């Protein structure tokens, strides 16, 4: 795993505009941390999206020792945005045993409201809140819009962001050039938000083509495939 992600705090909140690729990043980060021998918990805190979500990867993650905490109704036919007590339990476990790694995959935009109720467990300097962006998503392709959504998330979740993850992609057809093209945009956004650009994600099939971009985190597509 790249240094920038190794150096993250052990309590990691993954946020972003809806559809930015938070879940893909969170699932891959959980795998990478587990591969380093860490005791990892992934909490699916997405109360917004009923379809593609971290809970789709539970079987695969548990096979490599990642503990998954999912909403009661994830992957069922019920769209009730309720969170089970096990979420609170998992966050408390993180506070008790700080060497654990706990990753929270938070739903898009107003989904961050769900974070608010756990606010007392988050102490400044003891967590990282990563804002995942995809320049190719509508409504965030302008820097002021992308910053606005970040501030909305911070306000809803009552937490401060600590870094930006560039997850710009066009799905399966993404080329290395598509990603390289977004680098300067992301750096400008990071500067505007006074945050570091922690890492740039790229699908692992682009390995070797992105040497020009620093801190690339190669990920596998964790989205449920229908066809």
């Amino acid at each position, binding site marked *: 795993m790249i240094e920038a992600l190794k150096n993250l705090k052990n309590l990691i909140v993954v946020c972003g505009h809806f559809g930015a690729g938070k879940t893909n990043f969170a699932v891959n980060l959980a795998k990478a941390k587990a591969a380093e021998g860490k005791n990892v918990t992934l909490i699916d805190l997405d109360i917004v*999206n*009923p*379809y593609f979500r971290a809970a789709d990867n539970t079987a695969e993650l548990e096979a490599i020792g990642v503990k998954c905490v999912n909403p009661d109704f994830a992957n069922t036919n019920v769209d009730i945005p309720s969170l089970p007590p096990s979420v609170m339990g998992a966050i408390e476990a993180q506070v008790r045993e700080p060497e654990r790694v706990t990753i929270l995959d938070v739903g898009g935009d107003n989904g961050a409201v769900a974070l608010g109720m756990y606010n007392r467990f988050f102490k400044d300097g003891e967590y990282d809140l990563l804002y995942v962006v*995809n320049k*190719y998503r*509508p*409504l965030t392709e302008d820097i002021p819009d992308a910053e606005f959504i970040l501030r909305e998330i911070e306000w809803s979740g009552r937490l401060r962001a600590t870094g930006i993850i560039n997850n710009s992609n066009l799905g*399966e057809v993404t080329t290395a050039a598509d990603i390289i093209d977004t680098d300067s945009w992301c750096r400008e956004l990071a500067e505007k938000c006074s945050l570091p650009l922690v890492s740039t994600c790229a699908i692992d099939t682009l390995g070797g083509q992105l040497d020009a971009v620093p801190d690339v985190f190669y990920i596998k597509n964790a989205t449920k495939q*229908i*066809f």
Partner: protein
Amino acid sequence: MAKKVLMKGNEAIAEAAIKSGCLHFFGYPITPQTEISEYMAKRMPKVGGLCLQAESEISAINMIMGAAAAGSRCLTSSSSPGISLKSEGISYIVGCDLPCVIVNVQRGGPGLGGIQPSQQDYYQATKANGHGDEHVLVLAPSSVQEMAQLTSEAFDLADIYRMPAMILADGALGQMMEPVDFDVMSKRDVPEKTWATNGTEGKRKKNIINSLLIDPVELENSVIARFKKYDEIAEKEVKYEEYKCDDADIVIVAYGITSRICKTAIAAARAKGIKVGLFRPITLWPYPKKQLGALADKAKHFLVCELNMGQMVDDVKVATECKKPVSFFGRTGGMIPSPDEVLAEIEKLAATL
């Protein structure tokens, strides 16, 4: 907007509507199509349009009737149970000969059902969106790009034929993300709306929009006139895709998300030497009867694949005049078959040919 964008199907519909000049969106939230409303709420104020969350689906469809009567390009969207609620309004809009676009991002039913994808509203969309002798144009996209393209075409078709056009999608298409290019959308010439109730300014006779025709002779004439229009549409506006049908012994007939699953299964079957192709109706009404029927002389078997219990089977039997056997494979209630399940069905059939 940047040239390339990665969008959910629901967002692509909303953006395509705005790019097609839609200025009024009326809707009521329901999973799995709520992103259309959310997107409209964010974008409409920026383009001088209106996005209004009505108090119910029934209100929303009647607001559409008003906006359409005034000559506005307008859109409403819902998912299966919500479309049922709109059905009276849809029939009124047909009776008034008004253009509008209605989106159904289908979920599992019947009843409140579930929130996972389905194609269980095929009958409703193609045979009986509302009461009375009536039809609406039904377009079935199979990709996020088509969600955008067909939305734009739906607006043009609705205006040209003065009738509602429906985008019949499903939860998977609504939620999945693919790149979209908005530069390739088609633009057709549409007639001026001289019939619209948009104010006479003292310069012309008043226009009247009405679906109440008490005199049965007058009502019958209006229905007959409308059905002449339907014949013209059936002649001119069918859309379909043929995929590897030329040498196919088995022709799968599938639309929407199911056609994508079938294409993967077809590639796997072809690799095993089974000659199988896909006929994909893009317009479900009008149904591409002639084009599908033409395949009945060459193919040995038709396999209908849907996310329902076989609602399209009868249309395939009619189109092929039962010249060859028609069988069905599908899942329902929100379940999606994997390409492997479809492949197994193809192999089973191939063994009998």
